[in-house]
């Protein structure tokens, strides 16, 4: 565990520049020189440099965590900037790991930053995690979360966990020796498609800032060995109500990886465990024929009688629309009578996934002339009309 391992390197000292930098820590008895040296000798790996990883990286680097590992394989895009405050507009298009490391090096050149521009997998996880004292989970999908949990349990390392959805966040510490793990809390992930991802469900930008900051705070407390950590407690945060709730988190004696009779002794195939694609549901098998944006445009230009059905939500329609008739996916069942099965219908949504579901439903309901717009309004913007904004 972090605090005990750190005692060995008692010869480490702070430079005068570092003493000035960490002055506000040093004058606090809870940190002091002893605590700051523990931070300097600490080795923390942040998995993911997105919404949660951004505040985590910033605060851990600022606090003087001596060795900070960052792992991500994504590229910064415009939709990230609303919440991933570690990036700037000029970073769009750059690998996240490169942009994040550059920002953190500028913030605190006295620390070591390790970068791993890769996806964490069952093959590389143990090797990547091994050199670190504490692992912080700032990922966005179930397969990686179960992978991090299992790797931490196998290596005996604490896993500082945080996750978010729209206005709601959860945080705790798993894998602390003797404490519960993620599988003790949730033995299995939801089947794909039952829970929308952030990309589909949206997230209020400040929320990952709050939850990521809680993870940073817990990481620092683990390093310092001070205070009462979240081990054994699940903290739940509702940003709309601005309310924190706390639940008891117990070790499950039947846990397959940390229980008495464990059945998992090595890392498994997490994509398979989570139903292939985890949080992002695979598009339903294309039993409904697809029409490309260009084909649709050509048919509309020819004056063909097509009924454009937009199955997005009203607030999305306000962002942009292509003149379709709005019936949100969730209302199709009760509003199906509004549709004329004798007409040709082209269903569309943002990316083509929800409309595939709607079209499939209509096909089963007896609609024979139904198409799904391939790639949705995003593809329409790319291929037909670039004045339609993408979101």
């Amino acid at each position: 565990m972090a605090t005990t391992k750190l005692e060995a390197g008692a010869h480490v000292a702070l430079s005068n520049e570092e003493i000035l930098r960490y002055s506000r820590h040093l004058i606090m008895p809870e940190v002091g020189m002893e605590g700051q040296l523990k931070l300097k000798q600490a080795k923390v790996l942040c998995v993911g440099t997105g919404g949660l990883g951004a505040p985590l990286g910033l605060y851990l680097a600022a606090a003087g965590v001596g060795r900070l590992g960052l792992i991500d394989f994504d590229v910064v895009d415009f939709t990230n900037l609303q919440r991933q405050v570690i990036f700037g507009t000029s970073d769009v298009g750059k690998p996240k790991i490169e942009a994040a490391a550059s920002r953190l090096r500028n913030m605190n050149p006295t620390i070591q930053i390790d970068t791993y521009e890769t996806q964490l997998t069952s093959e590389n996880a143990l090797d990547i995690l091994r050199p670190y004292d504490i692992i912080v989970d700032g990922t966005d999908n179930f397969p990686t979360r179960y992978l991090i949990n299992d790797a931490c349990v196998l290596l005996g390392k604490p896993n500082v966990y945080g996750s978010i959805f729209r206005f709601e966040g959860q945080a705790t510490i798993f894998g602390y020796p003797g404490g519960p793990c993620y599988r003790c809390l949730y033995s299995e992930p939801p089947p794909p498609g039952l829970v929308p991802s952030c990309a589909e469900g949206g997230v209020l930008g400040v929320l990952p800032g709050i939850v990521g900051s809680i993870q940073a705070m817990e990481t620092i407390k683990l390093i310092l060995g001070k205070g009462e950590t979240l081990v054994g407690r699940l903290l739940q945060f509702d940003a709309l109500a601005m309310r924190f709730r706390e639940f008891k988190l117990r070790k499950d004696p039947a846990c397959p990886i940390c229980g008495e009779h464990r059945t998992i002794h090595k890392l498994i195939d997490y994509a398979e465990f989570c139903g292939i694609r985890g949080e992002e549901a695979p598009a339903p098998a294309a039993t409904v024929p697809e029409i490309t944006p260009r084909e649709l445009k050509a048919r509309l230009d020819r004056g063909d009688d097509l009924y454009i059905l937009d199955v997005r939500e009203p607030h999305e329609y306000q962002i942009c629309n292509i003149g379709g008739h709005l019936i949100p996916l969730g209302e199709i069942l009760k509003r199906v009578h509004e549709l004329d099965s004798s007409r040709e219908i082209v269903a569309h949504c943002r990316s083509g996934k929800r409309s595939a579901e709607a079209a499939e439903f209509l096909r089963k309901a007896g609609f024979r002339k139904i198409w799904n717009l391939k790639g949705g309004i995003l593809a329409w913007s790319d291929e037909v009309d670039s004045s339609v904004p993408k979101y």
Partner: protein
Amino acid sequence: MAVKVIIPTPLRQYAGKQESVELQAASVGEALNSLVGKYAELKKHLYADDGRLRSFVNVYLNDEDIRFLEREKTQVNEGDTISIVPSIAGGSR
């Protein structure tokens, strides 16, 4: 007993967009049954086809996980709060 059931953000869309629902029940199971009776769409999100609570949905009576009490048979007291806490995974992209 009058109890309050707190609905988590991801499931509010299936519960009339409500944050919480006040119900009369003697046990946790009764409260949940009455909840899905009121909001039929919630059922498939809380229960698997075999009628058991789904493994990625935890239910707490006040701050205690009902798996460590008597599960759905756990008796409730007047004014208790039942919280439904599903697994969420968002965070990065």
